């Protein structure tokens, strides 16, 4: 039980503090993303804060954004994205692909 946190801690020194990017909230409810459309400024790094309000885990995944992250049921997770060129970047929940779909629009 104690070893896993230790493993993560070993990597901690790399986590240097940087300027805080804008936070964009996103909610998962009933296996859907709310909002399904997220608008962010192009050319800027932002922090998606995803709150999974379902009781089951979900995996935020996007080939276009090059991101994947498991978010346990009831948990909040941060995903850094960008800086992005203007455009549309679809994402989906891998564990509920039929309903959990959304898109990041950089403009």
């Amino acid at each position, binding site marked *: 039980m104690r070893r896993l946190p230790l493993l*993560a*801690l070993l990597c901690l020194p790399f986590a240097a503090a940087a300027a805080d990017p804008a936070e964009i909230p996103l909610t998962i409810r009933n296996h859907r993303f709310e909002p399904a459309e997220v608008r962010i400024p192009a050319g800027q790094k932002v922090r998606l804060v995803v709150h999974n309000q379902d009781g089951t885990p979900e995996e935020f995944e996007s080939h276009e954004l*090059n991101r994947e992250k498991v978010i346990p049921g009831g948990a909040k997770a941060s995903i850094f994205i960008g800086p992005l060129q203007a455009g549309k970047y679809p994402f989906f929940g891998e564990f509920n692909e039929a309903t959990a779909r959304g898109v990041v629009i950089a403009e």
Partner: protein
Amino acid sequence: MLGAAIIVFRESLEAALLIGIIAAAARTLPGRNRWLSAGVAAGVMGALIVAALAGRIADMADGMGQEMLNACILGLAVSMLAWHNIWMARHAREMVAGARAIVRDVADGRRELSAIMVLVAMAVLREGSETALFLYSLASEGESAGQVLAGGALGLAAGAGVGFAMYAGLLRVPVRRFFGVTAALVLLLAAGMAGQMARFLIQGDILPPLANPLWDTSAWLSANSPAGTLLHVLAGYDPRPSAMQALFYLGTVAAIALGMFLARAPARSATPA
């Protein structure tokens, strides 16, 4: 049930291919199967523990625990692959030469085999923890446990089948070329994993992406297509890599290739060993 089968297949594919390639690359080492199965068993245990602790791991390191853990697991796997390739570069010649050389190398080989166990365990751990979480979520969604397990078993069998096909295919490569072919595959696997490691460190805001993306071939060969998936698993293909990923990829190729070259050189001068 089909959903469970497909996800488990996709998750197990990467680990199965890796095990297939490693099993082939280590085919001359005595006791290989015991170490391989020990690695799989340790990986499954670790995956269940990670899945059970998922919530707590996600909260660690300011919400970046998962990226850290993934990056560490990948980093460890890459270094074990590097070790394997460099060790094999030194010993492949003697092994091809005949069984007597193998007997002499047993003591050395055991050390190499424990590296293989760690490597296999890391691959199974990473893919397995996601699978366990997903199956758990399906089961708690009301799909019957029997259905979920049947689907999972189907997907796992399909993944293992592909891994075995890889193994069987590699065994057909003539002995003279065999070590070269498996070494090249292991090299590409390691580089692909290093690229993924960079991606997690970027996702966790620990490293900058530098140019992002460096290029975009997604219209040409999408990551979702069967060919794109296979290339991703085998060689770390990414249609939109960042410059940092490319640096990790090329750096790993260069470092392992250099290590193999250096390991081979003294073996030549000390032929009677």
